[in-house]
């Protein structure tokens, strides 16, 4: 899978490149700002971009804006946004164009190499990968308190779903059986009034409905 990386830190770029290359990704370009990123995307038409939020010239939300521009022009390209801090507002902006093939993670997560590569593969396959910290921030902003409808356990499952974990992944994280996870998930679907359709779609819907309040 062909990837373009955009990060202004010369310390971080080689690290991420190595992690991705070792994980079987083909890093076709590594650039230092949003403008170069957009040019590289036009040139290489990659499967995925990995982009830092704070980049020159203003060091605020260049990465988010670049991600939205790429999503607008090339909806097929998966986008992984990385940052030293995650912010609910940026997540909302990112998800405004749909949650398919979008990831938003703390940069720290790259250091968990295996999990990071799994998240990368998931978003390239059309999934979502949200940092647990973003999910907790988004929960704060819900007008209605979700704790009142979902049990704490169901909430935890939903949080792990937002990180786009598989049923097995969730079962492992919560140290419960796979069938227990399935039961939690079907309860969540019912409580969030999601119509029966294919499960993968319902999972994304559940996360989105939950996050949007």
């Amino acid at each position, binding site marked *: 899978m062909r990837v373009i990386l955009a990060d202004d*830190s010369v*310390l*971080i770029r080689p*690290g*991420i490149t*190595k*992690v991705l290359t*070792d994980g079987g990704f083909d890093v076709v370009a590594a650039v230092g700002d949003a403008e170069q990123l957009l040019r590289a995307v036009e040139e290489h038409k990659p499967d995925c971009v990995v982009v830092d939020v*704070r980049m020159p010239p203003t*060091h*605020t*939300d260049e990465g988010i804006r670049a991600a939205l521009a790429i999503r607008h022009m090339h909806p097929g390209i998966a986008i992984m946004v990385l940052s*030293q*801090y995650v*912010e*609910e*507002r*940026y997540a909302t902006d990112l998800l405004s164009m749909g949650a398919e093939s979008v990831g938003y993670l*703390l*940069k*720290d997560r*790259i*250091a*968990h*190499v*295996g999990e990071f590569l799994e998240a990368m593969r998931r978003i390239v396959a059309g999934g979502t990968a949200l940092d647990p*910290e973003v999910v*907790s*921030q*988004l*929960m*704060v*902003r819900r007008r209605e*308190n979700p*704790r009142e409808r979902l049990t704490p356990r169901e909430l935890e499952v939903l949080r792990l779903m937002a990180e786009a974990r598989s049923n097995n992944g969730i079962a492992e994280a919560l140290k419960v059986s796979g069938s227990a996870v399935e039961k939690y998930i079907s309860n969540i679907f019912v409580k969030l009034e999601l119509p029966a359709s294919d499960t993968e779609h319902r999972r994304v819907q559940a996360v989105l409905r939950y996050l949007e309040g």
Partner: protein
Amino acid sequence: MTNHPGPESPFTTGRSVRHLVAGAALGALAGSLLTVMAVLWFAAILSLLEGATGDALLVGTYVTAAFALPAAILWLAREFARVHRDRFRWSFSIDIPAPELTWTSAGRYLTYHLIALTLGVPAIVLVLVPPAARRYARADTVVAQALLAPGSYERMVRRVESLAHSRAEVIAATDAERRRIERDLHDGIQQRLMALAMNLGIAREALTEPSPARDAIVAAHEEALASLTELRQFVRGLHPAVLDDRGLDAALSGIAARVPIPVQVSVAVEPRCPAYVEAIAYFIVSEALTNVVKHSSAERAEVRVSRDRDRLRITVIDDGCGGAVMTPDGGLTGLARRTASVDGTMSLHSPAGGPTTIDVELPCA
């Protein structure tokens, strides 16, 4: 400046004599000019009151004089006061600051010019008994400092203005400093630590067989990640970039999510406040929630921020055990200090058994 005689005292006999003679001359000149003008003004008013006789030109002159002379008297009083101040500077290097020209200061100038008339008497005495000049000169200095300088009220007003100005500068500088530190940490040590954690992560993945080396790398990896988390939380507390970028509402999500209890946040701030007010409001909410978690054993909390014209109101409520008090080094005291630094007000309502409410109002022009 000292009034005590000594080797460095500026009040030497020679200088004192010169000072008093100059003062007497100046006083006499000012006195006579001002007196003439006052008499003319009085005459003009009197003629107008009694009904002016004579042609229109004369009446016009009277009316003009009635209005113009007081202005001229004020102007002269001020100018003579200026020359008197110069006299003190030349004679003794004593700087007497000038007040604003107001009715009060003009009245005090006139009083001094009246007193200056009497300088002529000691000036004559002095020529006969020169050492006495020092005493007179000192007395003259005391009087001039009382009458030619700004009064205590004006001095206080000026002091308050300068304090307010310097305080605003200190706050702006602190704000800029926090931003700079945040940026430096973000671009520097955070990146290095990240690179370190990443490399340790790569090494950890590569070593799959259990071995002492792997154990050491796993421990180092975990340690690096824990340091990153700690550093991130510290830096975010300093001054989050999203605060400048998207404002208070967006920045508060991060704080609320960090707190282990449910926090409801509602923010209605339109238009945005100045950056330093946003920074203080952010700090206040952060501190208040930290306090809630540390001491209140609350199960939930609520943060409300709203703007009503030029006031920003911040309310933090928790359903904890109450009984919160301000201790000298406590978080609440820091909060009150930060609030006071921009002339805000803070009130704490925390009956035993709860709930606790902290109300803060910040001016935001």
